[in-house]
Each structure stands twice: as C-alpha cells, then as structure tokens.
C-alpha cells in the first residue's frame, strides 16, 4: 500500500501531496511573518504552478492570508503595535476597493484577457515595488557601513498630503493626518487584492511609511488588520458568488502558514530593518521578473485548454 500522503481536494478536483502543501504553507507563512505581509503574491502563483485552477487558488489563498494575518495581528495587538483608529479608516476604503475590484474582475473576465491583465499587473507592480525596496534597502545598508548618519525626518515635515482637510488625530501612531489619503490607500489596496488575488501588505507597508508617514512601530500591525478584514471579505465573496473556496486546501495552507508565520516573526526581530527591506525587495523583484520572463519568452506550448462548464 502506498502511504496516505495524497489528499483529494474537493473543489480543486485534484489529488495533491499533503506534505508538499503543508511545506508551501509553512514557507510562505515564514516569509509573511518575517516581513509582516500576507504572502499572497507568493502563494497564488505557487498553487497555480501545482496545477490548481487560478480561480480556486485565488479564492482559497484569501482565507489562508486571513488566518496568518489574524495570528500576526493578535501578537501585534498584545504589543500595542496596532492603531485601531487608523485601521478603521483604512478599512472603510478597503471594503469599497474590494467591491470595486470584484466587479472589475468580472468585467475583465468577460473581455477574455483576464490572465494577461493579471500577469501584466503582477509584472508592473512587483518589479517596481520590489526594485525600489531593494534599492532603498541596499542604499541604507551601504550608508550604515560607511558610518553616514542621515538625520531622521522631522516629524513636523509637511508634504502636500498633510495640507488636505478632514484631519484626524491617530493617537497610537502619534500622527495628525487627513483621512482622505488614508481612505484612498484603503481603496487602492482593496482593489488590487480583489483583482490580483493578493493581500497587498507588501505595497501597503511602504505606502504607509513613505506617503502617510506612519511610524514603523504601528505600521505592520495596522496593515495586518486591513489585510485580515479584506481577505475575510474576499473569502465570503468568493464562497457566495463563485463557490470556488477549497476548504480542505485552505485548512492545510492555514496550518502550515500560521506555524511558519510565528517562526518568521521571531526571525524578523533578529534581522535589521534595512536588511529585511533588501531581502523582501529582492524576493518581490524575483517573482515580478518570473512573470515578466513568462510573458516575453516563447511559451513551450502555444495552446492552452480551459473548461468552460461541465454539462451532463
């Protein structure tokens, strides 16, 4: 008898090696804990590579990201590293963005070029964000090596963003900021998450740091709350409209993911900030380049088949 390592996924309609999925969940979970991101941009392509239908992968990964960001959010909450007011305002935008994203997704699918649009947005987003992040991390590392100290930005430095009306005081983050850019960022992330099947943490964190000037002490925990809620919302939407959430796949990913995330979070505390940014930047860049290569090189097979519906 063959040992029971194969498990049949009821919605994906496919048997998979249970340890392979667990290991993938743990590895992506480790990365997500290390950098304080959801890890969807790694998990979704990995599952598609295993042969799981992209729609099922996107839908199931949403619940996996929700689980690992919830476990992360709890530990950040304990350390008082979440700004509830900021998270609440972000969420208002995030929910609107997710709903917009889902309708755009449907529209693109009707036009028949959804896969191309997803691949193009992966390339554009991942290479630019990854490139900037890696470059910035590298520069910071070189500066510390040379012993150059950059004067910290004065907390009072005002960009145009700080001149906008509807200001609100976010106590825990110690910032005084208009809610307009915060809601817009929430919409943007929710939109991307729904269209690309990612949590969006890897874009949200830099935006919060560089554009909204949220202090690093609350940025990761707060972004995790946004990821958690948008991904729970996305899971519900996928389950109700498309019936594509594979609970068995999601459960295996979750178990691996939350475990990996805990070890990742611990490892993250031992690595310096700029090294972390360089590593994350390189990782994101690598995924982006992989998508770009796939678009540019001549495919091994010109033809693909997709089932559009079984009728009996």
């Amino acid at each position: 008898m063959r040992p029971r390592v194969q498990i049949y996924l009821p919605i994906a309609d496919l048997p998979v090696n249970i340890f392979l999925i667990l290991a993938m969940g743990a590895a992506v979970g480790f990365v997500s804990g290390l950098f304080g991101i959801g890890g969807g941009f790694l998990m979704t392509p990995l599952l598609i590579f295993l042969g799981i239908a992209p729609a099922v992968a996107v839908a199931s990964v949403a619940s996996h990201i929700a689980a690992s960001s919830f476990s992360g959010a709890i530990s950040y909450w304990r350390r008082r590293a979440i700004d509830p007011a900021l998270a609440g305002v972000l969420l208002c935008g995030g929910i609107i963005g997710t709903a917009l994203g889902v309708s755009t997704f449907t529209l693109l699918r009707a036009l028949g070029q959804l896969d191309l649009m997803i691949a193009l947005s992966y390339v554009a987003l991942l290479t630019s964000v990854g490139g900037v992040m890696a470059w910035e991390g590298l520069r910071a590392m070189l500066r510390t090596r040379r012993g150059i100290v950059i004067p910290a930005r004065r907390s009072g430095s005002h960009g145009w963003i700080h001149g906008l009306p509807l200001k609100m005081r976010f106590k825990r983050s110690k910032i005084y900021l208009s809610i307009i850019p915060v809601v817009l960022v929430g919409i943007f992330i929710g939109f991307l998450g729904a269209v690309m099947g990612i949590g969006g943490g890897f874009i949200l964190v830099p935006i919060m740091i560089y554009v909204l000037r949220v202090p690093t002490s609350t940025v990761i925990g707060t972004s995790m709350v946004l990821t958690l809620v948008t991904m729970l919302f996305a899971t519900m939407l996928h389950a109700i409209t498309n019936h594509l959430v594979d609970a068995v796949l999601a459960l295996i990913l979750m178990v691996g993911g939350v475990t990996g995330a805990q070890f990742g979070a611990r490892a993250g505390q031992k690595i310096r900030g700029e090294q972390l940014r360089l590593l994350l930047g390189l990782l994101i860049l690598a995924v982006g380049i992989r998508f770009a290569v796939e678009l540019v090189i001549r495919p091994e097979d010109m033809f693909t088949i997709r089932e559009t519906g079984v009728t009996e």
Partner: protein
Amino acid sequence: MTARRRAIALLLAALAALVVAAPAAAERLIVSVSNHRVTVTPNYSGEELVLFGSVEKEADTPANRQNYDLVVTIIGPRADMVTRRKERRFGIWINADYRQFLQVPSYLAVFANRPLDDIANAEVQRRQQIGVNNMILTQRVGPDYADVVPNDPFRSAFVRLRSERGLYREDTSAVTFLTPTLFRTGIPLPAAVPIGTYEVDIKLFSNGVFVAKTESAFEIVKVGFEQFVATNARQNGFIYGLITTAMALMSGWMASIVFAKD
C-alpha cells in the same frame, strides 16, 4: 375482449420475434466492467478498471467467422472547452486566437487489439467513429458549428494537451483476446479524472466488417467527506464561507496561543 387480447398477444409475439431476429444473424457481445461505480476518496490517485467479455456466436453465425477485432471506446462526461493559441504581440506572448469546443468528451479512450488501419479501412473507421481522429469534436468558429479535419491545429493541439494529462488516449494493443472469443482490456483512469457518467462502447469487427456492438457504462463519484464539502460549497455558499472564515480565525488564534507560551 378476447379478440383484443389476442391481437395484443400477437403484436407482442411479433415484437419479440423481431427483437430476437435482429441480432440473430450476427454475434452477440457480452461484456462487464469490473466496477460500475468508482469512488473518489481522499487518497484517490488514479485507478484501473478492467473490462472483460466474450463473443457469443449464434446458431446461424457463418462458421468461417474467425479473426475477431474489437474496438472499445470510453467517453467521459461531456463539457464545453476553449483552446487558446498564444501569439507574439508587442514583444509579449498573449492569447490571440481561440476555438470553442462544444460538448466534447472530458475523457476519451480508444482501445483495440491491433492497429485500427488493420481492423477496418478508413471509410469504415470514419463511419463507425473509431479512433480519436474519427471522434466528432464540434468546434464553434464565429457563428459556424462544425468539426474539422483531424490535422486542424486547434483540434490536434486539443487532443495532444488532453493526451498529455492522460485524459485522451488511444492504445491499439490494449485489448487482448484470451481465447478467440474471450477478451479483456484495462481502462486506466488518471488521478485528475472528471466526475460523472462514462459510456463504454464496444464494437466488434471481423475481416474489416462491422458485425456487432454493445454498450456499458460506469460512474465516477465523489463520496464521503469530499462529496460533503463539494455539495455544501455549491449549495450553502454563505454558511460555507462563514465556516471557512471561522476556520481561518480559529487557526490564527490557536497558533498565537500555542506559540505565545515560549
């Protein structure tokens, strides 16, 4: 009353005579599949069914009928599919052209005891639809519905891709005759086999002529936990979503408790 009953009896007798008479001139095929209900369980990783049967000669079968040839065609549940072709535009490879395949078998296997060209000529093969190349795969090209020549690029790519996944196959040495009239063949079902009803079509040939046919069927079903999950995902989407999100929250919470201690 009696006259009417007699008329009915006569009619029935005539019908019975017809039914008996029709195949009497030829052979009869008796077949059985080893399992009429294949269940997909958590550790399902493919299976092989066995089809066996025999050629029963009738009293008036010509005595010189020897050299039987057998073609077994298995057709899985039908589905609509799209085959897309990538082309290079603006330096990147994108899906440029596509064909819709309407109600084509999701699984197709053709098994025979020797090469199809030795069993019957091309015309008989085409008429009896034996061989993957002679199966009708309806395409929609714009407003037209048609099958095309076997070497059509979309059709051949479709067959090739399905074959690579073990879902389309043609094996002309799979059927073995244990005695001149007793035969068997294996039906391999890959791990990713579609769920549904499978028709089995068995055709008997002798000296290049079609002589008899029979049909059988088997079913591939999901059972147990898989079936439960799949049914609920489809029918109770809202509750299913709630349970999945609850599961996500629970596992996240559990992890933070388990790992918070050290």
